[in-house]
């Protein structure tokens, strides 16, 4: 009994002293920016992370991150732990625009500025840093219509749990709706692909092509991963000439564009986005106001609240504009041009 009591006392003493030590350490080095990722597994986020770090490190801020593994509940816990560890600002890539709100309120209550990164949140007090996602959808649809002005179209869309899918769709529909209404374009198939999985897109498009007896002229895929799966399905049926869209500027997709297998990808220099978010985070952490942020505009959240936003410009990359990604150092010429017919692609000569 005495031994147990002694052990317990020792234990409590150890805990107290170490937490005192740690909190002293926390006071000493206070410059920290926390990032809560929703699911670091998807292809592009490591580029965003590099962008964020490239601004934080020279400015003397420590980069702390968590990964919610696509679980909204885990993300709540992640944000709370970031708050508890004493960060000066939080950058959140939300898994769910509504479920994240309690965590954001906790951050606001603690006086910690919040940047909503690329995924919309329904919070008027967070700054939304993203690409103009409506423009993403619009550019995608415009490039596709330019390549394939009419016929039967298939929509291969992203995971329905991600609210950004709706914004892409709205942008696409702004271009497509008039054409659908007057009968030029007909949507003959539409599927949301769980997890944006390429193999899921392939299986779905296989079935849609079967249902329509291959009478499909365009596949509006929402990102490059699903575009890859879609292309595998098209190729298996000898439908290589069908117009195909994508997003993110993945290396495999850019190569497909050079080879004439994909029509367009919407390239968002996520390095720049990471940098912009980190700059905004540092500004706000130092006490700056949302209204004074560089490039700030006002937008509306999904429920109609006013929200400050910093929106970067996306670019449509087609065969003719591949030089943009080459010049930015996004992809090497070898990776871009392997297997491409140099005669048809200017940048591969």
């Amino acid at each position: 009994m005495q031994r147990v009591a002694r052990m317990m006392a020792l234990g409590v003493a150890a805990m107290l002293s170490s937490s005192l030590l740690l909190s002293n350490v926390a006071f000493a080095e206070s410059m920290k920016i926390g990032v809560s990722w929703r699911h670091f597994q998807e292809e592009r986020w490591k580029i965003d992370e590099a962008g964020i770090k490239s601004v934080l490190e020279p400015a003397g801020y420590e980069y702390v991150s968590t990964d919610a593994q696509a679980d909204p509940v885990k993300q709540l816990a992640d944000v709370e732990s970031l708050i508890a560890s004493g960060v000066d600002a939080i950058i959140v890539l939300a898994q769910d625009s509504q479920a994240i709100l309690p965590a954001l309120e906790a951050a606001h209550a603690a006086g910690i500025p919040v940047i909503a990164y690329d995924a919309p949140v329904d919070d008027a007090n967070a700054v939304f840093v993203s690409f103009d996602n409506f423009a993403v959808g619009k550019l995608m649809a415009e490039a596709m219509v330019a390549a394939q002005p009419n016929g039967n179209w298939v929509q291969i869309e992203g995971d329905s749990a991600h609210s950004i899918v709706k914004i892409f769709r709205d942008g696409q529909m702004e271009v497509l709706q008039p054409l659908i209404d007057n009968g030029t374009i007909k949507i003959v198939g539409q599927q949301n692909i769980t997890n944006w999985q390429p193999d899921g897109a392939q299986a779905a498009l296989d079935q849609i092509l079967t249902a329509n007896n291959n009478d499909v002229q365009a596949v509006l895929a929402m990102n490059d991963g699903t575009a890859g799966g879609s292309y595998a399905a098209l190729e298996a049926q000898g439908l290589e000439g069908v117009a195909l869209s994508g997003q993110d500027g993945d290396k495999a997709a850019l190569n497909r564009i050079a080879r004439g297998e994909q029509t367009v990808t919407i390239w968002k220099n996520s390095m720049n986005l990471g940098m912009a978010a980190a700059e905004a985070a540092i500004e706000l952490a130092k006490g700056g106001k949302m209204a004074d942020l560089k490039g700030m505009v006002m937008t509306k959240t999904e429920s109609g609240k006013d929200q400050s936003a910093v929106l970067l410009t996306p670019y449509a990359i087609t065969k003719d504009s591949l030089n943009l990604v080459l010049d930015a150092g996004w992809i090497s010429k070898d990776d871009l041009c392997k297997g491409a017919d140099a005669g048809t692609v200017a940048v591969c000569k």
Partner: protein
Amino acid sequence: MVVILAAVWAGFGLFTGGIFLSPRNLFNLSLQVAVVGVMTTGMVLLIVARQIDLSVGSQVGFIGVFGAMVQTQFLPVDGSHTWWIAIVCMLLAGVAIGALNGWLVAYIGIPSFVVTLAGLMFFRNAAYMLNAGETIAPLSDMFRRVGGGLDGTIGPTLSWLCGALAVLLICAMTWRNRHRRERFGFSNPPPWVAALRVAAQIAAIIGFVLVLNAYQLPSSKSPAGIPIPVVILIVVGVVVSAISVRHRFGRHVFALGGNPESTSLAGIDTRLLTLKLFILMGFLCGVGSVILSARLNAGASLTGTMMELNVIAAAVIGGTSLAGGIGTVAGGLLGALIMQSLEGGMILMGVPSPLQRMVLAVVLILAVLIDITYRKRAKR
């Protein structure tokens, strides 16, 4: 189970205006079943032995990215030997992962649920780390054929040959079985019953080859025949089934599942047996990964996410009891066929994807309920 499958096919045939039963859709269906089917054969044996493997989807993803890297980064992607070297590497990777799982379960004593749950998280994220999340595409042409892409079928003549072989095998086995039962004094069902069963099986095989030959390859407009992944599935199915029913190994597995203590007291090395089962599962994950990444023509780290649920559901629908000791490989393959028919049929009908998963969940429960009720009645 066969009745359920027939009902599903008839139902979808009706709702899709016959498209479901078209040669093209059945061809696609056979390709889609190949991956899950191959892995289900191993999973059935594992579940019979009172183990489970939750990491199969992550293994498929990891091995896929690894194989894609071997093909594009370590070897020239259009080299003539690249394809089979990559396949060998992928199979070896599967065996290695299976061995690791098996060792942790059998020799260290950690429950398989825990080991493979950890494996699920570990290998999915390892797949991401391998190439920093970037999808690797395209892959070697020869490799793609293995996935059924680029006209990866064996053609009509070889398909008929396979069909003929299968028919011969069935006749020979049925005759041999009857003969052996007579010799040992067991009663045989009347000859006309046996003849009817054989006839039904022959009809199924002929129908199978006919349908696959009726589908024309888009590129050459020639009859397709059996796709290579389906040949792989058939070979794997027959081999694993034969092992489980005829070979000593299979008897030991069922003994282990029925009563682990008496099995071990009877002198069977249960730890080695468990290790072998996990190695088999890992190997089959390698095969599944080869087919899936060849079909996708890419190594993507998200490939195979959640596939373990499909594989386990297929095994369970096929009559494998999660308590161990009961199950057949053939049943598991039927279960995979039923699940995939449902998935594919629903997309044909344009059902939104969340609803699809809900329907599959309900079907899983119904199928197992029917199976349990049927078994209870049969016992009485």
